């Protein structure tokens, strides 16, 4: 199913038959191989939002790390704005680093514990190199305000903030370099429901304001239902289903997607159905 309509040049990210196998370790190496990605294909148009859903071991994190070029892939192609990610170097790699920004699951661990929040966010502006030193502080404060944090929090250390505040700060840091694509790795699964709602709304607001594309990796189908136009369901390294979110959820084709939908808890008093027992 092709869901990325539009001109080919409007494609921000295209994956074709992407594969990655982790070799098992050990002397005899019998059967230890894990095929994290098997022939994964999808594309993401500019200004689109894509949710990648899967449970542990589905390969969704490996895919995300491949896009960030934190891990290589064995075969297939993965192109960002027409350039193969694996072959980027020098200025082109620097460009990728700026244009694609992650927001990770555990907001605490993504901050260097020795630096203040403001200083961690300022780093992005320094790397961008478009601001004079004395202006950076003002930019940091403006950005903190944008993500709904008190600008005076710039001086606090990561451990002094709450989980929701840290995740907002992490978003501010990612936005400092004005990325074209934001990769969110379970960005709210460590947060309470009420804080999750705030952060998810924030993503929507910021997207309108900053105009970035977005890939959201999660195990939580309702979050994708709220956030994303398109959906990719992964299981054991394979794409089992993809399409417009409303279509997939309303009319799932694969048994696994149906199981995921059945298991997803929703406030309604409806009973969750267990999938067939192993």
């Amino acid at each position, binding site marked *: 199913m092709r869901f990325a309509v539009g001109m080919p040049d409007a494609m921000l990210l295209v994956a074709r038959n992407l594969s990655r196998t982790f070799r098992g370790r050990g002397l005899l190496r019998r059967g230890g191989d894990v095929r994290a990605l098997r022939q994964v294909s999808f594309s993401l148009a500019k200004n689109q939002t894509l949710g990648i859903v899967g449970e542990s071991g589905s390969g969704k994190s490996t895919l995300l790390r491949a896009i960030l070029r934190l891990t290589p892939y064995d075969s297939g192609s993965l192109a960002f704005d027409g350039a193969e990610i694996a072959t980027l170097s020098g200025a082109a790699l620097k460009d990728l680093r700026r244009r694609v920004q992650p927001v990770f699951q555990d907001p605490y661990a993504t901050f260097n514990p020795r630096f203040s929040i403001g200083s961690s966010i300022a780093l992005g502006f320094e790397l961008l190199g478009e601001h004079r030193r004395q202006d950076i502080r003002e930019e940091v404060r403006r950005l903190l305000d944008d993500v709904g944090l008190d600008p005076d929090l710039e001086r606090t250390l990561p451990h002094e903030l709450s989980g929701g505040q840290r995740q907002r700060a992490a978003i501010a840091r990612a936005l400092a370099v004005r990325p074209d694509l934001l990769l969110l790795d379970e960005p709210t699964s460590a947060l309470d429901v009420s804080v999750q*709602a705030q952060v998810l709304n924030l993503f929507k607001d910021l997207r309108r304001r900053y105009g970035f594309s977005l890939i959201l990796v999660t195990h939580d189908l309702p*979050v994708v239902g709220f956030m994303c136009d398109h959906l990719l369901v992964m299981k054991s390294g394979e794409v089992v289903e993809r399409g417009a979110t409303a279509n997939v959820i309303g009319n799932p084709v694969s048994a696994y997607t149906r199981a995921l939908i059945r*298991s997803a808890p929703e*406030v309604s008093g409806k009973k969750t159905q267990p999938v067939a*027992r192993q």
Partner: protein
Amino acid sequence: MTDHGHAGEGLLEVEGLTIVLRHRHRPPATIARDVSLRVNAGEIVGLIGESGSGKTMTAKSLIGLLPDRMEVVSGHARFRGRDLLHGGDPARVRGRDIALIPQDALHALNPVKTIGWQVGEPLQVHGGLRQRRIATVVGDLLERVHIPDARRRAVDYPHQFSGGMQQRALTAMALSMEPPLILADEPTTALDVTIQAEIIDLIGELRDATGASFLFISHDLALVSSFCDRIYVMYAGEIVESGTRDAIFSHTRHPYTRALIGAAPRLAGNPERLPTIPGRIPQPHEEIRGCRFRERCPEAGAACGEAPRLDTADGDHAFRCWYA
């Protein structure tokens, strides 16, 4: 069904329970305040709250597992009419009368002991069973929680089990003394959603088979909406609303509960923006005059300067709000 001989009275009755955290340099902080709840025989009761709401400590206080600097300063907790908090050795109650299914299955299991040994440990501690008898019982327990090839896998170590299987083993462990009450502390939080659904299903099945009651502690309102008979919602150390599942979800009274239900995204039909609760949960040491939700409440009015009591409206449905 377990017959406990106190007709009309709950299996577990908690009344006015208040837990404080003592500080060396600061005045004590109130972790749970005037908490009252009841679990009837054969019921699955949900205790819901976001982090810091005091739900876990409320449950832990019942079996004497509060951390060092926390203590119960007032209130009662009666189990089958017997006082749990004052006098009596909590170690004698634990595992035998009230068992715990902990969260984070992998870390909740001792890595150097076999699954079977750990599942059978309550029998070693409480029961006067012979070694061979214990092995048989453990095999039965593991089968009951649907661990495939149960008898053979009893000699495996925790790391050889998958997350779902570990959680099943912990459930078997809680069942071993056939306790009338089982506290389940976010038992599915670390699991994939499909596995989570399996464990929830298992709990329902075990309740039907053994007649045991469950106090299911969770941060996930959506999750408990599917299977709990009655639900208590906690906010900042207080119970703000309680009632049957239907009452809580179909006739929601408290603004916090309503906000919490609205804040969870749905599979489909979501609004453009999720309704949110402004601000953040007050810290236990913060002094708040009046209703603890007032600052964040869209419906707050003049009366909220005075703390509302937990009022029972119709039958079992209670809420802590002047305007509900």
